[in-house]
């Protein structure tokens, strides 16, 4: 028993070292901006850079918009497929996997081809139009993660019986979805939202080719021209992702419980 536990810890330790050592090395390197001592100068340099603030804010707003649009599209679709159109699930699975198969470069060229200045809907003609286009692109890129997160959430509840219970009490489909289904899969929706956030914050291809001032483009620029700041940015990105994961875990504790606690 003790031997088994020992080897379990050894495996865990090796796994942890594999993931944490490069991160630790990056972190130490990011603090070596001054030769004689470890400092947070690289971080100060990043945070005080006006471009950091503007690009991060831009990506943040894009992420929020992509999350809202994504949830508004995916939640009703996944709900109705699970409720009434079970036979359509394989088709949905396939469609939502496409963004993982089709590279973003193809997606953005498609966008530019379809919505350029000489098209019927010339979105690229204006800044707002291009912003709309980039948000739509982000929604597409995050679709596999958002759909799976919501679908997993729907799997944890008895969608059909809850819907029927609400309906027989007089609720229409929208009220049922908003007041009964959505609160019960809120944590799953949040997981999808944070994954979307992580994708949007680091995304480079769409923003670069649509020429928008996104955080991914800024990171690439900094990486190409500076030494220590890219490492600081990498650590900041990790901190943001882990923070998001921590929030999911925290919110999970407040999620509605479906089973009697032992």
């Amino acid at each position, binding site marked *: 028993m003790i031997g088994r536990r020992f080897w379990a810890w050894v495996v865990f330790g090796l796994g942890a070292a594999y993931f944490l050592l490069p991160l630790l090395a990056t972190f130490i390197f990011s603090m070596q901006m001054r030769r004689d001592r470890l400092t947070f100068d690289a971080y100060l340099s990043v945070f005080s850079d006006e471009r950091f603030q503007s690009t991060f804010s831009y990506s943040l707003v894009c992420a929020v918009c992509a999350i809202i649009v994504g949830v508004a599209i995916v939640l009703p679709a996944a709900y109705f497929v699970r409720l009434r159109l079970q036979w359509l699930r394989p088709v949905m699975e396939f469609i939502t996997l496409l963004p993982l198969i089709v590279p973003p470069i193809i997606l953005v060229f498609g966008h530019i081809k379809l919505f350029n200045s000489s098209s019927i809907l010339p979105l690229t003609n204006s800044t707002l139009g291009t912003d709309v286009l980039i948000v739509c692109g982000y929604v597409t890129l995050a679709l596999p993660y958002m759909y799976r997160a919501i679908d997993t959430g729907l799997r944890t509840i008895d969608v059909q019986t809850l819907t029927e219970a609400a309906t027989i009490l*007089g609720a229409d489909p929208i009220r049922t979805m908003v007041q009964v289904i959505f609160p*019960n899969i809120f944590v799953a929706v949040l997981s999808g939202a944070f994954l979307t956030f992580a994708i949007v914050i680091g995304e480079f291809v769409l923003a670069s080719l649509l020429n928008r001032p996104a955080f991914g483009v800024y990171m690439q620029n900094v990486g190409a021209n500076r030494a220590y700041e890219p490492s600081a940015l990498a650590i900041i990105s990790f901190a943001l992702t882990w923070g998001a994961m921590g929030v999911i875990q925290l919110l999970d504790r407040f999620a509605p419980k479906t089973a009697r606690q032992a």
Partner: protein
Amino acid sequence: MAEEFLRIDKLVKTFGGNAVVKGVDLSFQRGEFVTLLGPSGCGKTTILRMIAGFERPTSGTISVEGKDITSLAPNQRKIGMVFQAYALFPNMNVGDNIAFGLKIASMPREQREARVEEMLKLIGLAGYGKRFPFELSGGQQQRVALARALAPSPKMLLLDEPLSALDAKIRVSLREQIREIQRELGITTVFVTHDQEEALSISDRIVVLNAGNIEQVGQPFEIYNKPTTRFVATFVGTLNTLNATVADAGAKTVRIGETTATIPALPTSAKAGETVALTMRPEAVALANGVDRDIMLEGKVAEVAFLGSVIRLKVDLGGNLVSVDTFNDQRTPPPAHGTSVRVGIAASDVLVLSA
């Protein structure tokens, strides 16, 4: 004369060419407690779901108080329903669950709160309003589901096997409570179950269904004691079958082994020499300890099952295995396995069933 409340006419439901309900006609009186009883796949739940509006009939009509509701959406029908899986909303506490239908009906807050309190008292869970479903036992959750269904004062209550997920003791107490509340409110109730004991104990009338057709409709006493088909007789309760030979059809006499007996229920169409199946309930067969019945037969005890207040014996009567129920008596132990016994049957308790 009782007033007709719900009417089902020639109701048919097919799923992919497979008929699940095959032209059912039913009438429910106002305030009546009717049970749809039958084995799995007999169509009882499908009929209930069509009444609720969750399934659209392939053909036929459903009317409430003379109005055709066949095409009406479920949220327009003003029906309360309790599901087998409770279906309480996990994100809402007990009070909010009960108030859900009242909010949709736009009931003012004060009235709503008063109604929730009234419902909690009705189900014996006063003070549980702030608890969440996961903090309640299965029986308590089902009582909350009942209160939630009754809160908006529906026209009718549908119960879809609400006791199936509960353990035996809670099941009995909850079914008594459901019946008590139903009587108190006088609400027309349709109850679906496959449990014959449940159906017999709480219904005004029972509709026995088999393979999408109605086998028999009647009061529990009638269904149990006067089954009209072999299916009803075998599905509801235990049934003994004794093979006999018709001796004289005119005199209604049969021979069971060496014994000759007169069976009033023997049909006049029976022919001498023909083999007929005589059926009777276990309680219609008695151990002949000084008892004299119309038909007295010798046999051997093949099995003894102690069921508490009742002891069920299986007696081998010349190749026919017959169940005999006797009350448990502390002073008289049941006969042991292999003992020879005499059993008596009252001829009037014997039924000759059609196939």
